[in-house]
């Protein structure tokens, strides 16, 4: 059989820094080929070359053994290449149906046939196992639903090569399973699928072969059935990963936070829990179970309707994040680019946003030296890879951006820190560093809430896990009761 796609000796550099060096990569029709590597290893760059978003400096691309010249995204579309990017490309003001058929809106003639469009979109979305109202606005959907629309959009055209860049990052376990079913079907239809992911477990579940990118060079392609997790991690990191999760030496103190029966706009319906100093409590649950909304209600980012929150035994009357912060509560939000950091500003400025009084004199004049030193110290402590503290956060890799999002709260000495998806879209190396950091904070007595879609992450880092479902706490597991199965059962309501 001939290769559907063959990339031969591809090189690409950006202003002197080489992102890809002689990368060779082949995918057969009817194959799911995983592409893994740390952030910044060049995965996205390689795929953008295939999709025409970037042009290669050197090398050749073959589709079905014929050399092709992909100059722009239009060329790649004509070749039957579909791509689902890590960053969504939906138009928030348009309906789901219009988004799905965005690049074919003209095909039904000059006037749009809304009814037909919606019908077709619905059929398409149902065919991959989901149901989303095709007339709702894309901007009103949850991130997971947006991802599903994004997938439908790619499938709305006849694709022969499908590229998925971290598709599962925002999906819950059930949704991921449906995505896998869809990919399996496409594979049987002979589509060549390139699957980029940080989650090694997914790769073993779904991929046929795997290729590792490290520092812009490609490894041999390995058959998944003939390799194991450790070998892949070794190829990714260049070293063996002893343990992903740090050893917990929990010294749990007095209760710091108590949340009693809080409600928020139908998303949170009577949630109560307590949190002790030095304790790490995980909140598990499917996307849409109300995890994030619970966190936002505690942080007063959204207004809660009912319920009480006590901090160290005293009732808290907070109505805004500002008041929450002043009482010693911090939150690292789920969506780092929209809410966590300001991409166009420097690391230094991002860090001092949470504590600008600490770096200024009276009347707000900035203590430049102190601010810089403060930032430099945190950059060193968190091993943020950057030239200096004045680097714009937008230029950093995902993992380093996440570290900045965390660093913001380290200069506040929070009593309670809520971390929503601590390692989404973060490579293995940075993950370990983030886990260590969380662990270190709890050792200092900070009470921490970790929300995550990755069950393994919660089990590895937490002392206790609360499982949420439909806005309520479905169950609670102590450390010795942790099991992936129980958490999943509780989150889908099957107990």
């Amino acid at each position, binding site marked *: 059989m001939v290769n559907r796609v063959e990339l031969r000796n591809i090189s690409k550099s950006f202003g002197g820094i080489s992102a890809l060096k002689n990368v060779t990569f082949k995918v057969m029709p009817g194959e799911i080929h995983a592409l893994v590597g740390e952030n910044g290893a060049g995965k996205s760059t390689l795929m953008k070359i295939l999709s025409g978003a970037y042009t290669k400096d050197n090398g050749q691309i073959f589709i079905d053994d014929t050399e092709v010249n992909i100059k722009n995204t239009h060329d790649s579309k004509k070749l039957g290449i579909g791509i689902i990017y890590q960053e969504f490309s939906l138009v928030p003001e348009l309906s789901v149906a219009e988004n799905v058929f965005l690049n074919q809106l003209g095909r039904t003639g000059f006037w749009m046939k809304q009814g037909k469009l919606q019908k077709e979109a619905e059929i398409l979305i149902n065919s991959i196992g989901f149901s989303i109202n095709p007339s709702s606005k894309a901007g009103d959907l949850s991130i997971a639903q947006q991802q599903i629309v994004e997938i439908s959009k790619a499938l709305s055209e006849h694709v022969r090569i499908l590229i998925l860049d971290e598709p599962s990052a925002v999906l819950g376990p059930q949704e991921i399973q449906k995505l896998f079913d869809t990919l399996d079907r496409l594979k049987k239809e002979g589509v060549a699928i390139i699957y980029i992911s940080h989650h090694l477990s997914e790769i073993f579940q779904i991929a046929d072969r795997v290729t590792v990118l490290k520092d812009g060079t490609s490894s041999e392609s390995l058959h998944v059935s003939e390799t194991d997790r450790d070998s892949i991690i070794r190829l990714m990191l260049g070293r063996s990963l002893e343990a992903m999760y740090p050893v917990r030496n929990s010294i749990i103190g007095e209760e710091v936070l108590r949340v009693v029966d809080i409600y928020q706009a139908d998303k949170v319906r009577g949630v109560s829990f307590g949190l002790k100093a030095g304790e790490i409590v995980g909140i598990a649950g499917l996307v849409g179970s109300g995890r994030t909304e619970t966190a936002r209600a505690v942080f007063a980012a959204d207004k809660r309707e009912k319920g009480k929150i006590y901090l160290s035994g005293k009732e808290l009357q907070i109505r805004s994040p*500002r008041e*929450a912060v002043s009482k010693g509560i911090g939150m690292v939000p789920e969506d780092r680019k929209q809410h966590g*950091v300001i991409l166009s*500003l420097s690391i230094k400025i991002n860090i001092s*946003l949470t504590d*600008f009084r600490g770096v*200024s004199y009276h009347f707000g004049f*900035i203590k430049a030296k102190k601010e810089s030193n403060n930032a430099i110290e945190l950059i060193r402590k968190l091993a943020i890879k950057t030239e200096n503290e004045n680097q714009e956060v937008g230029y950093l890799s995902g993992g380093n951006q996440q570290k900045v999002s965390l660093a913001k709260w380290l200069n506040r000495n929070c009593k309670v820190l809520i971390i929503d998806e601590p390692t989404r879209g973060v490579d293995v190396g940075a993950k370990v560093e983030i886990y260590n950091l969380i662990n270190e904070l709890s050792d200092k007595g900070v009470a921490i809430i970790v929300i995550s879609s990755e069950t393994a992450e919660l089990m590895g880092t937490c002392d206790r896990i609360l499982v949420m479902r439909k806005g309520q706490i479905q169950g609670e597991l102590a450390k010795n009761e942790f099991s992936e199965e129980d958490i999943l059962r509780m989150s889908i309501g099957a107990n």
Partner: protein
Amino acid sequence: MDTKIRLRRYLQFVIKYNTVFIFLVMLVVSAIVSDVFFTTNNLFNLVRQVTPVGIISMGMLLVILTGGIDLSVGSIVAMVGVLCALFTQSMPLPLVIITSLVCGLMVGSVSGYLVSIHKLAPFIATLAIMSIVRGLGFIISKGAPVLVNENASALTDFGSGNSLGIPNPALILFLVFVITAVLLKYNIFGRIIIAIGSNEEAVRLSGIKVSAYKFSVYAIAGGLSAVAGIITTARTAVGSPVMGVGMELDVIAAVVIGGARLSGGKGTAINTLLGVMILGMIGNIMNLINIPAYSQQVIKGLIIIFAVLLQRFQANSN
């Protein structure tokens, strides 16, 4: 090949400092086409002409940095100008100035309140305020210009006089500029304004009271419009309800020529000042070489497009 690369570097340099570049080109062109341009008299005239727009542009810059816009500034100039002239008939001068300033601050505060607390779109909120305040200006003045009382000659003397050899209004513009520049570069206030325009939600979730900052930039813009109104009245000895019609557009144009981004988060005081000067020079030089007013507007528009296109190249080359 070598020359090509060098040419490219020059071009990138020009694009990066496009505001400075346009400013210098304007200076050279002005000096060539008119031999009176570089006379003290003309330069003073130029500075006096741009002062009101210049002072307000610093307030507008703050508003635009947060991602907002303020259309009411021209109306505030007129209303405060009229009020200031009226007040001179019954109040001592210091009180006249303070009361006039407070009026401007109050109008700006209403816009700020609507935008920050009620989350009205800044364009709509200030469009409404623009209409209301323009109307109030006419009501207060009964539609006719109000003369400054003779007792307040100190005001008119100040408006038309010089200190240290420089027109007084220009000194005030310079002062406002310096304060704005310092605030933006060395103060938390400016820092947070820029951060809000870059990503408002991230700022809010960092525990900062975004509404207070948004409120204050509109209040400041209102206050600075009042300063411009007082200066205009002082210079002409008349408060007229038709002052500052369309001025908001000149102010916004100056800020944009200065490279500020209308969606917020990007812009500097020095470039805004250059933008003001560029806009002023266009008018000044065309007057000197007797280009009719109608053509002036066309040319002004073309230069704005040119300036913004240059900034586009800058964004793309990044």
